[in-house]
């Protein structure tokens, strides 16, 4: 570790520290492994960057020299994807999530705060000591912990702008610690199984620390328990989650577990076998009872119903198909997956069923693609199957990029075997012999779990040649996306697989006819494939029985935003939005008023509270101007500004546009300019009309789904919240969210405690103890620190023009 660090430091001391010889050697090594084929360009660039920290121009030149990649292709690709860096980055990268959920919880302020703390101005992104680089990333997929910051691989949730220094120090301290090493369970007879969620959200919530404590406790008391890391449970905002299953099959679940509580919790359920340890635990128990009142508040003392009520409300209204056995299955265990009926669907298919017959079952089931548009699965499979081409591909689209959506990540992290099974069945039905996982690079955990699962599947013979003794052979590989939201569009995804810039093309030809390398390619979303084994195991009627007439089955949503209980939920189609928010989500947090939900991310729209009784259904949502999208569901309360939301999404689509067609490239820019003026209070009513008109043109005229749906957030905003838009033309932001239209003032409630003055990063509040503080508006950056820390809520943010 240390050696590596030194290496990077020497590289970063001056900007071209690597000698050209060394760069060329690295490139040659990489190319030696990847091959010199033009299609490998993204992989080559990723590997080179991994080794050299960035892409020096000599490396690019040398890649052109020794591979089939042309300078034009290389330059186009190396600048298209946001993963590639052309200047060296700091030793540690601070990724600030700017996903929807993080945005509504103030990620802009967090980003400003980190940059200020590290002395990073607009011209650079790296601190002077080259230790940290700050990057704003689309979505880290930990929406329920918003706002989220990730430093290298360590994630911090619920960050506040005044904590940045603390976080940086904590990160630097934590670097010396060793990672967790898991021990295999000993003995056959165990007293209990302790399950800990290790999804990304859980890890961010501190579940690794909890896991460590459990291991310590286990060692200290010589407990005979099995420790099991499970995938995402869905209760992402209450992490870490710990579940104990004792010998009598009693389940006890604890939310928000802190590492100090672990000992207590475990000892309540499991008694040490060793007599001396038993005494030790008894003494600890007594001592705790006498010495502190901590025990009284401890979750251990709460009756089970109270403790789990929270979870029951969250879990009761759900229906698990894609996420079945969540919180039980260990993501890495093949045996466990098969124990719960895994791969039986695949076996049934390849041994006894005819592809035609399988397609009929899916036609019966009414399963529609879960990637957003809702295209019937059976028809897509049929087109691919009917093609005469002997080479066919199946691609699992895991390029989930919607800010505010993380269900694909969770499915890949928690149920890799299930998706592999779904994909292999798809391959069997369509007659494809290779499958490709396209997973975005921002999901390293998903990539490593899927990679591991694939290896195991090969060992167990469910992948590779002659699966289950049949004549069917299937291979699966992984392709890591390089950071481009547009690659979620299937034609762009294929362009990216082929080593080109991720620009979509007009369909038809559909990939199912002419896709990857010109061969028929079936592109299915992760969630769609995850539902496949369930339908074959339980029958299409079981699937049909759930949902609405046009939308069958369930949908996984990432519920986040201003909701009391956020997380990953799988609900039956047809459930109303209000039920999701109130029954599952527990209503809006903090006694605020439920204003709207943003559904479907940047392609979706805002549905106002008045229409919250709309059922979740592809067509119903389209009617409202929103769409199912991939399933982000962000709840907004009365402090959220609709113009600000529209601006946020437009900025996202505008940045993620591939730049090919006029309407999306220029149209979104002009729209963004108008929205920007609205948020600054300088737009007129005429501008608002122009905006609406332009939205319609961009929707009608864009080439692919990204552009066609980009105006939805604006159009629904204008449709349902017109008065709010009009207020902005008068220079007033009714919710006080648009930073340019508000000012920070200190009211008479101020008691002169000086906390705000000490917290102000730009010294805009003079230090005047026992006097009412005053904010110097010429210095104030509206970072919100003072408002957060004020103990008497004396700081208000009225409109400038009110």
């Amino acid at each position, binding site marked *: 570790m240390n050696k590596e660090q030194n290496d990077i430091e020497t590289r970063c001391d001056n900007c071209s520290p690597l000698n050209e010889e060394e760069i060329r050697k690295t490139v040659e090594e990489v190319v030696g492994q990847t091959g010199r084929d033009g299609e490998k360009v993204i992989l080559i660039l990723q590997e080179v960057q991994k080794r050299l920290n960035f892409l020096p121009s000599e490396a*690019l030149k040398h890649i052109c020299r020794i591979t089939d990649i042309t300078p034009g292709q290389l330059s186009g690709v190396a600048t298209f994807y946001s993963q590639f860096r052309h200047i060296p980055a700091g030793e540690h990268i601070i990724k600030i999530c700017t996903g929807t959920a993080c945005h509504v919880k103030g990620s802009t302020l967090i980003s400003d705060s980190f940059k200020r703390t590290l002395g990073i101005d607009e011209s650079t992104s790296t601190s002077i000591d080259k230790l940290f680089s700050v990057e704003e990333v689309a979505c880290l997929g930990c929406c329920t912990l918003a706002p989220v910051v990730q430093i290298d691989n360590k994630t911090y949730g619920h960050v506040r702008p005044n904590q940045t220094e603390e976080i940086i120090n904590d990160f630097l301290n934590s670097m010396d610690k060793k990672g967790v090493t898991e021990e295999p369970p000993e003995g056959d007879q165990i007293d209990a199984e302790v399950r800990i969620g290790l999804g990304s959200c859980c890890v961010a919530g501190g579940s690794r620390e909890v896991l460590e404590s459990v291991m310590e406790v286990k060692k200290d008391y010589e407990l005979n328990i099995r420790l099991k890391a499970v995938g995402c449970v869905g209760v992402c905002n209450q992490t870490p989650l710990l579940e104990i299953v004792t010998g009598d099959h009693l389940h006890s679940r604890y939310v928000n577990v802190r590492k100090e509580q672990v000992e207590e919790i475990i000892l309540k359920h499991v008694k040490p076998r060793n007599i001396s340890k038993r005494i030790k635990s008894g003494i600890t128990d007594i001592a705790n009872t006498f010495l502190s009142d901590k025990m009284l508040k401890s979750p251990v003392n709460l009756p089970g119903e109270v403790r789990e009520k929270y979870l029951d409300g969250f879990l009761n209204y759900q229906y698990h198909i894609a996420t079945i056995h969540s919180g039980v299955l260990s993501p890495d265990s093949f045996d466990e997956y098969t124990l719960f009926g895994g791969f039986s669907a695949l076996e049934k298919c390849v041994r006894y069923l005819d592809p035609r017959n399988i397609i009929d079952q899916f036609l019966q089931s009414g399963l529609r693609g879960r990637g957003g548009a809702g295209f019937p699965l059976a028809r897509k499979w049929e087109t691919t199957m009917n093609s005469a081409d002997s080479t066919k591909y199946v691609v699992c689209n895991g390029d989930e990029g919607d800010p505010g959506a993380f269900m694909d990540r969770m499915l890949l992290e928690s149920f890799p075997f299930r998706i592999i099974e779904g994909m292999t069945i798809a391959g069997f039905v369509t007659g494809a012999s290779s499958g490709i996982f396209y997973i975005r690079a921002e999901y390293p955990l998903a990539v490593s779990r899927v990679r591991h699962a694939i290896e195991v599947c090969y060992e167990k013979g469910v992948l590779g040649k002659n699966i289950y003794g049949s004549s069917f052979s299937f291979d699966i590989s992984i392709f890591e996306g390089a950071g481009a939201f547009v690659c979620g569009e299937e034609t762009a995804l294929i362009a990216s697989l082929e080593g080109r810039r991720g620009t979509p093309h007009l369909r038809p030809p559909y990939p199912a006819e002419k896709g990857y390398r010109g061969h028929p390619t079936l592109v299915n979303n992760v969630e769609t494939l995850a539902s496949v084994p369930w339908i074959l195991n339980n029958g299409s009627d079981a699937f049909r029985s759930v949902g609405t007439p046009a939308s069958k089955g369930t949908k996984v949503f990432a519920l986040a935003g201003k909701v009391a209980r956020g997380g990953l939920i799988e609900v039956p189609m047809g459930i109303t939005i209000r039920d999701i928010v109130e029954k599952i989500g527990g209503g809006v947090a903090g006694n605020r008023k439920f204003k709207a939900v943003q559904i479907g991310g940047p392609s979706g729209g805002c549905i106002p509270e008045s229409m919250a009784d709309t059922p979740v259904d592809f067509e119903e949502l389209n009617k409202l101007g929103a769409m199912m999208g991939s399933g982000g569901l962000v709840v907004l309360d009365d402090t959220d500004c609709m113009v600000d939301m529209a601006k946020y999404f437009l900025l996202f689509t505008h940045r993620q546009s*591939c730049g090919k067609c006029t309407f999306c490239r220029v149209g979104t*820019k002009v729209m963004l300019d108008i929205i920007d003026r609205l948020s600054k209070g300088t737009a007129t009513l005429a501008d608002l009309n122009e905006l609406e008109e332009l939205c319609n043109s961009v929707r009608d005229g864009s080439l692919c789904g990204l552009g066609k749906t980009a105006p939805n957030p604006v159009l629904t905003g204008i449709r349902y919240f017109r008065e709010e838009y009009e207020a902005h033309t008068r220079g007033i932001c009714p919710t006080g969210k648009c930073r340019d239209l508000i000012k920070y003032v200190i009211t008479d409630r101020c008691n002169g405690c000086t906390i705000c003055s000490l917290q102000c990063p730009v010294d805009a509040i003079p230090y005047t103890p026992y006097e009412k503080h005053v904010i110097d508006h010429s210095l104030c950056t509206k970072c919100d620190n003072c408002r957060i820390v004020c103990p008497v809520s004396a700081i208000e943010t009225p409109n400038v023009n009110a």
Partner: protein
Amino acid sequence: MLKIRIDNTGYEVPEGTTILDAAGKAGKEIPTLCHKDGVTHYTSCMVCMIKDRHTDKFLPSCSALVQDGMDIVTSGDEVTEIRKKAVALLLTEHRAECEAPCRIVCPAGLNIPLMNRHLSAGDMKAASELSRSELTAEEFRCISCPGYCENACRRKKTDTPVSIRNIQLFIYSSISGDKTIQRPDKQQSEKTEKSTKAIDPGHVRNQFSSRTGKLEEAEMLEWLKECEPGIPRHREIPSFDMAGEEAKSCMHCDCRAAGDCRLRDLAKHMAVKDPRGKITGSPITKKINHQTGLIFESAKCVKCALCVRICEDSTDDPALCFLHRGFVTVLSEPVTESFENVLRKQADAVIKICPTGALSWFGKAREA
């Protein structure tokens, strides 16, 4: 064969035909910009939009394939409106000037930048011809004009305007052979003939003209790349050499493809107005390869990728490519090459195919 309707008439079309081709066979004209026969489809400009009433969707006809049952509309308000919008959006990012400020304000509409190009190339004859053909005798000497051209000259913002009037005066005197006010009779007769077919001085102002909008300092510097650096400046123009030298300080604010620009033609044809606010986000950069004589002006590029597409297969002659994505997508030489090094063989081809003035010959105007 697929059965479709185009503008209410039924047709049978073989599978795999584009709507553009089908409509062309039916005698319908659909405007295009990023499409050229024989070059692979790219579908970027969206100028060729048509509407399929069957699905109630707009489709780019150049690459959309006919489907059975399509009911295509190639003209009419809706279709015209969306095509106009596409052109208007292209013009929003097209930060270019069809005509130079000096020419626009010239009461006679003389093509001053072209005259300067002739002079700096040492072609006195062409320069004289130009003046003679565009100006009436009165205008020729620029005596009565207060010099709007020099006032509008962009060069004025950096130092002094190009001495346009004195150059004209010199051209006049060299043609007429004397410096008196009288014109030779021969010229007089030609003048009467000319004035009948003379272009209306206001023609330059009346036709469609794209404007750059407010220029930033850095952008002015880009424009200065068009001038030869360190060339002596002359207020008085007593000789041909000096006229040539002074002409070299011209920044060539006009577009070399003013007469051969698909975008301008479309704007004119569809009566699209130049958008009020150009987006200044696309910076004006000029790259000149003095060896091949190629000039590339990024802000004029409409990202149609025609030049990229025709050079895609060339391995020995590095071509242009797109860098970045979204609105900041820019046509450029590959990051591994210098501009001097690209398109040594294919410059001619890319200039010919460019639908705007983004790629041109540095020294001469492009002809239609």
